[in-house]
């Protein structure tokens, strides 16, 4: 009877309409007392009414049930009963072998919505990522999407953080380490070299200038630079394996050896700082066992 309150004039066609009301935060849908062919719940409130059934999941979709032998109303056929975890795998486009780069344990429906950052991508490389449902170790169907990896600069990263060197980047002398033993027999002029060790890895060093947030603000803020230096040093000594990569295509999976050093430039009031780290390879970024050994395949 809102017409009496002046909502509209008495005696018009809608004057006896009931008051507006709403039910917020609906989180349960129940159906009964009919044969149901399909059910759709969507955020779209603009499309005109038609009897056409939806053909695909859209950005507005909330639920879609087709009752084709199941009660699934999400956008995958999997259910909590058929999932123990989700594996995210990656491979370079055109290659065959997949690398598991993340495994997500699934206990509730909320576990399946996640995002993560993959810092182990190489420069100028086409990748395919696969979403793989896993039930007690057995993998289900792969759902694959592609992406082109490209970046500018030199980065050092671990599973939690990635740091970009923006200026003064320099690699020190690099070594390819191998194990060679020398046996000096008494009755021979030349020694015998023994190379039956399998060691074969690189060591090197990297240095760069700390610029704070200069790339965004174009201001060399001394306090920011000091804070960034402190954070970077803690990052470098956190005992986690690191990725060093650049836009030349270099990529190494390393650990930081020796002590990171900071050198201060007195010509800039000591606020310009160069950090130098020495590193040693600990594995192949494209080898899943190596990645697992150093913690680059976390399970969450």
């Amino acid at each position, binding site marked *: 009877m809102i017409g009496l309150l002046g909502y509209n004039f008495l005696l018009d066609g809608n004057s006896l309409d009931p008051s507006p009301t709403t039910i917020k935060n609906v989180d349960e849908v129940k159906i009964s007392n009919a044969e149901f062919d399909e059910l759709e719940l969507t955020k779209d409130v603009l499309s005109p009414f038609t009897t056409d059934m939806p053909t695909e999941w859209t*950005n507005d979709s909330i639920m879609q049930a087709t009752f084709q032998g199941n009660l699934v109303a999400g956008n995958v056929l999997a259910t909590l009963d058929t999932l123990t975890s989700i594996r995210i795998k990656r491979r370079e486009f055109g290659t065959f072998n997949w690398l598991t780069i993340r495994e997500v344990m699934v206990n509730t429906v909320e576990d399946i919505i996640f995002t993560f950052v993959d810092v182990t991508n190489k420069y100028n490389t086409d990748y395919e990522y696969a979403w793989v449902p896993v039930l007690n170790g057995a993998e289900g169907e792969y759902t694959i999407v592609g992406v082109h990896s490209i970046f500018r600069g030199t980065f050092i990263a671990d599973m939690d953080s990635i740091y970009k060197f923006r200026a003064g980047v320099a690699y020190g002398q690099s070594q390819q380490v191998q194990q060679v033993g020398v046996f000096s027999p008494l009755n021979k002029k030349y020694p015998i070299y023994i190379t039956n060790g399998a060691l074969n890895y690189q060591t090197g060093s990297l240095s760069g200038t700390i610029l704070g947030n200069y790339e965004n603000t174009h201001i060399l803020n001394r306090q920011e630079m000091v804070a960034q230096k402190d954070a970077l040093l803690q990052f470098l000594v956190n005992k986690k394996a690191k990725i060093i990569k650049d836009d030349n295509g270099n990529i190494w999976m390393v650990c930081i050896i020796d002590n990171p050093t900071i050198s201060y430039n007195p010509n800039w009031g000591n606020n310009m700082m160069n950090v130098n780290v020495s590193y040693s390879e600990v594995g192949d970024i494209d080898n899943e066992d190596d990645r697992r050994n150093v913690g680059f395949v976390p399970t969450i």
Partner: protein
Amino acid sequence: MALTKPILFEATAFDVQDGYTFRYNVISGEQPTGATIYIFNNISGSLVYQYSVTSFRFEITIPSNSGLVNGVYYSAYITTKNAGGDESPQSNTIQFYCYTNPTWVFTNVSTGSIVEGSTFAPEISYQQIEDEPLMSYIINLYDTEQIQIATSGTKYTSSTTGSFIGSYTFGGFEDATSYYVKAIGQTLGGTILETEMILFTIRYVSPETYSQFIVTNNCDGGYITYTSNVVLIDGKSNPSPPTYIDNELVDLKQEDSWVVWDDGFQVSDNYTLKAWIKNPNIGRPLIKLTNPNGEFVEVYIYTDPNDEDKVFVELLVDNGKYVINTLPDSINKPTSTDELCIQIRCIDNIYQILMEGYE
């Protein structure tokens, strides 16, 4: 040289289950080889706990089974002793509370969350069962280098209870970029609270076509963001499993047979629900949408009282205050092979119900 009066440092509130390390200092005098702490109920003045340690370290760690009780206000002083067993004068007296560890968590963001928008207000929740108030908090925002890029600054709460919800709005987020957020709080008793670093990703440019997974290259950041858009909603039914007709329809015509979805989704805004059905039971509830308060929207089909060959659809919106029937025009009664399409549309507080039959 004799033992001098020790200085006992202030203690923050702590949970008796965790134990606590009291620290003190001694200036000049003889080298202490141990200390004894005396803890009193600050109201009654009675001695409730006494604990001695032998150590050159200027600290006394009381264990978790000390017998102290959470929610009680205590006072304490210490004495030190030397190798000969001589005792020093009493230290200064301090007061402190014991409180159960509070919960300190973000309520609207968790690791891996996707935030849609260029602004976002992380919400932090503080709950402490003995009503120790939260004095202040700070919410910090970090980039993927975990370098702080924004902060709320110190926010004082003026809260007087053990329950507090706070938030701070950050702006200027870039699309397809990941950030960390962390909250640091301090209770009135001085306890410092810290959340973990929570990684979340901003996404406010929706792709034109839907994908269950969004993989985005971040050129400046040097990383790839992988976002799972998978929606997992599985229904429950009675009977279980329900009866399917040619694997195309589910038959819920029998009394007490139903399907319900109650996990994995929430409708927080306007919506449209459409159902394609056959052979409805007249006058019985067909579709019911319910919220956590028990309020519901329900759909029925009735025979038109003025024409037995026609039916109409009714929408019932019941939030405890209003019951609303929306009665659009009747349509011809469907045959057993006809299909009905029913649409409920909710825009703000206005509901629309439509139904159309077709062969």
